C-alpha cells in the first residue's frame, strides 16, 4: 500500500489530469485558448428589402410569360384553344340553325295544339286580354313562381357577399357614400322631383293593367325600382329611409312572395284535386277581372321593385 499523497501534490500528477479530462469536468480549452462568442448577424434594413425585391422578381420572372418559355407556350396554347373552341361552337350552332325549321312557317312543329289553345281560348279561360300575362301567370303559374324565387335568391346571394354590419354602415355613411358625386346636386334633385312621381305612377299603371295591355309585374316592378334608384341617387339614403328602410324592405318582400305562394298553392291544389275555384274571372277588359292574374301581378311587381332597389343599395354601400 502506498501512502496517500497530499491533494496539492496529487493534482499535479498526470493521472489526475487524465481522469479529469475523461470525466469532462475540465474543458482543456477554457483558460488556455482565447475564445470569443460569435456575434449575432444583424442584417441591415436595405439588405432585407433587397432580398424581398429579389424574391418578388424571381416570382414575377417565373410566372411572367415574357421570360418563361414554358409559361409562354402554355398561354399561347390556352388562348389558341379557347379561340378555337369558341369558333367551333359558334360554327356548329350556325350550321345547325340552317337545318332548323324555317322561321315563321305555318307547318312548323311549334305551331301545334299548345299555342292554338293559348290563342283561341286564352281570353275565355284566363280572362286576360294580354295573352302573355294569361299564359305565364295562369297556364304556367308554377314556372313563374320559380322565376320570382330566382330573383329572391339572387338578392340573398348578393346579401351574403356585400351586406355590411349596421354599426360599420353608420360609421362610414357620411364619408364614403358620396365620394365620387356631388352632394345635393340641384339639377338632379330638380329633375328627380318632377320625374319620380311620374315614374312611380307609370309603374303602378303598368302593374295594374298587366292583364289588359302589354306589361305586367316584371316590367312594372322594374320601372318602380328604377324610380326608387333615381330618388335615392339624387336625395341620398337618409331621405329614402324615411319610407323604405331594411325593415320595410323585408316586410314588403316576404309579404309579396308569401301572397304569391298562397294564391299559387290555392290555384294548384284546387286545380289538381278538382275542387271548385272561387276566384271569379270577371268581365274581360275591366280592371278588376282575370282571376288570379291581377293579385299575382301586384305581388311580382312588389318583389321586382324591391329586388332592383336592393341590388342598387347593396352594391353602392352594402346595406339598405
Amino acid at each position, binding site marked *: 500500500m502506498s501512502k496517500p499523497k497530499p491533494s496539492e501534490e496529487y493534482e499535479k500528477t498526470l493521472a489526475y489530469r487524465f481522469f479529469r479530462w475523461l470525466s469532462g469536468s475540465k474543458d482543456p480549452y477554457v483558460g488556455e485558448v482565447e475564445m470569443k462568442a460569435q456575434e449575432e448577424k444583424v442584417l441591415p434594413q436595405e439588405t432585407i428589402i433587397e432580398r424581398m425585391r429579389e424574391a418578388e422578381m424571381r416570382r414575377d420572372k417565373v410566372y411572367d410569360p415574357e421570360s418563361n418559355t414554358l409559361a409562354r407556350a402554355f398561354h399561347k396554347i390556352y388562348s389558341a384553344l379557347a379561340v378555337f373552341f369558341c369558333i367551333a361552337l359558334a360554327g356548329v350552332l350556325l350550321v*345547325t340553325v340552317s*337545318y332548323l325549321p324555317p322561321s315563321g312557317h305555318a307547318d312548323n312543329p311549334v305551331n301545334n295544339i299548345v299555342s292554338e289553345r293559348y290563342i283561341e281560348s286564352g281570353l275565355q279561360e284566363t280572362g286576360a286580354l294580354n295573352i302573355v300575362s294569361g299564359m305565364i301567370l295562369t297556364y304556367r303559374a308554377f*314556372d313563374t313562381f320559380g322565376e320570382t324565387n330566382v330573383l329572391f335568391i339572387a338578392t340573398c346571394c348578393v346579401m*351574403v357577399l356585400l351586406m355590411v354590419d349596421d354599426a360599420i354602415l353608420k360609421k362610414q355613411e357620411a364619408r364614403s357614400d358620396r365620394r365620387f358625386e356631388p352632394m345635393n346636386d340641384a339639377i338632379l334633385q330638380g329633375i328627380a322631383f318632377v320625374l319620380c312621381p311620374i315614374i312611380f305612377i307609370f309603374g303602378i299603371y303598368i302593374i295594374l293593367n298587366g292583364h289588359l295591355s302589354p306589361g305586367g309585374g316584371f316590367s312594372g316592378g322594374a320601372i318602380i325600382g328604377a324610380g326608387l334608384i333615381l330618388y335615392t341617387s339624387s336625395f341620398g339614403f337618409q331621405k329614402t329611409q324615411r319610407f323604405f328602410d331594411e325593415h320595410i324592405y323585408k316586410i314588403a*318582400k316576404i309579404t309579396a312572395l308569401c301572397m304569391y305562394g298562397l294564391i299559387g298553392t290555392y290555384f294548384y291544389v284546387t286545380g289538381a284535386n278538382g275542387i271548385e275555384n272561387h276566384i271569379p274571372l270577371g268581365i274581360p277588359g275591366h280592371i278588376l277581372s282575370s282571376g288570379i292574374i291581377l293579385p299575382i301581378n301586384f305581388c311580382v311587381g312588389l318583389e321586382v321593385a324591391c329586388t332592383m332597389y336592393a341590388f342598387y343599395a347593396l352594391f353602392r354601400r352594402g346595406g339598405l
Partner: protein
Amino acid sequence: MDLVQNFPCFSIILCLFAGIISSGLRDKAALRVNTVLLTVVTLLSGATLLYTLHTGESFVYVMGRFPAPWGNEIRAGVLEALMALFFCIIMLLSLLGGRHKLLEEVEEGKTYLYYVLTDLLLSSLLALVYTNDMFTAYVFVEINTISACGLIMIRQNGRTIEAAVRYMIMSLLGSGLLLLGLCMMYDLTGHLLMSNMKESVALLASGGEYEIPLIVAIVLMTSGICIKSALFPFHAWLPDAYGYSTVSSAAILSSLVSKGYIFLLIKIIYRVIGFNVYHDTRIIDALFAFGLMGMVFGSLSAIKENDIRRMIAFSSVAQIGYIYMGFGMGTQAGMTASVFHILSHAATKSLLFIAAIGLTDVSGGSRKFIELTGAGYRNKWAGVTFTVGSLSMVGVPLFSGFISKLLFAQAAVQNHTKMLPALIILGISTILNAIYFMKTVIRIYTPVGETAYTSITFREMRVYAITLVAFILLNVILGISSQPVVDMIQQGLAMFA
C-alpha cells in the same frame, strides 16, 4: 284523387315558403324552421314512396286548372320518390354534422341566409326530381346554381370567393348549353312537356327528319349537364369549391347538387329523348370514355393531394366518372348500377366530409396529412366513421360502395364490346382508391411518439357524434340490404319508359 298525391307538390311549395319566411327571421329561428322543414319533407317523401310502391305505378299531378301540355305538371314514381327521400335524409344529416363549424365560419347575423339558401336548394332539387316539364326543370336549375354559389361563398375568405367565381362561370356555361339545347328541342318538337317531347322525338328519329339539329340539341343538353356535374375534363372548379367552403356546403354540393343534375340527365335520357334514340346517337360512347378517364385521373389527382378535404373532393371526380361509365354501358343494368352509385356515393361522400372535419378539428384546424397523424385517437368517433367511409369507397363488402362496384362489374359483363375496358379500369380505379384512402386511414391511426393524447368525449359533441352514427347506419343499410333498393330502382326505371 288521394291525399298522398298532393305530397310532391306540397314538399316543393313548403321548401319555397320556408326559404321566404326564413329571410325575415333571426339565425336560431331560421335553423329551427330548416330542421322542421327537412323532417316534414322527409316524411312526405317517405309517404309518397310507400304510396307509389303500393299502387305500383307513377302518377301525374297537374299544377293548376289546365292539364299538360298547356299547364305545368309534376310526376312522381318510385325512383323520384326514392331520390327525394334520400336527398332529404342526406341534407338533414349534412346540416346537423356541420352545424358547429357553420357557427364558427359564417359571420354572425348571416347564418339565417345560409338556411334560406339551403331551403331553396332543397326545393330546386325536389323540383328537378319531380318535374315533368323541361322548362320547369330549367327554372329550378337556375335556383340550384345561384344557391350553390351562395353556399360556397358564405364562408368569406379569398379562396371561397375565388372558388365561387370559378363555380359560377363553369356552371353558367353548363346552364347556357342546356338552355340552347332546350330551345332547339322546343323548335323541333313544339313541346316542353317531357312525354310529348318524347313522342315527337320518336317520330323525328324514325322519319329521319331534322337529324342534325336533333343530334346537336342532344349533345348540347348532355354536355351542359356534364359540365354542371363535374365530369372529368370539366372538373377544374370542383376541388376548390368542395375543399374550402364550410363543411355542410361541401357535403351538400358533392352529394346532392351534382346528383340532382345527373338525375335530370337520366330523366332526359328516358323521358325526353327515349333510351333507344339516345343509345343510337353514340353519345353514350363519349360519356363512357370520359367516365373511364375521370375514374383514373380523378384518383391520380387525389393521390397527389396533401390536403384531406381536397383529396376527398378529387375522389368525387373519380366517383362521378363511375356514374357516367354506367350511363355509357348503354344497358338497363348499367343504368341501374349508376343510379345505385348515385345513392351510395351521396351517402359516403357526405360522411367522409363530415368525418374529416372532426379529424381536422382535433389537429389544430390543419388539413395537412402531417398534422393529422394520430387524429383517429384524438377523436375516436370521427376516426371510426372516416374508416367506414374509406372502406366503402374502396369497395369492401358490408358497405354500400361494394354493391355499386359489384353492380358495375355485372353490368360490364353483359356488354361485350365495353366489358374489357370497363373491368380493367374498374380494377385500376379500385386500387388507386385504396392507395389514397388507406394511406389516410393508416395516417390517422399512427400514434404520435410517446406522448399521451386527450380524446374528445361524446359529451362535447353530442349532435355531431349522433350524426356520424346515423351516417354509418345509412351506409351499412345500403350495403347489407341492397336488394330492395336495387329492386326499387329497377321498378322506377321501368316506370320511366
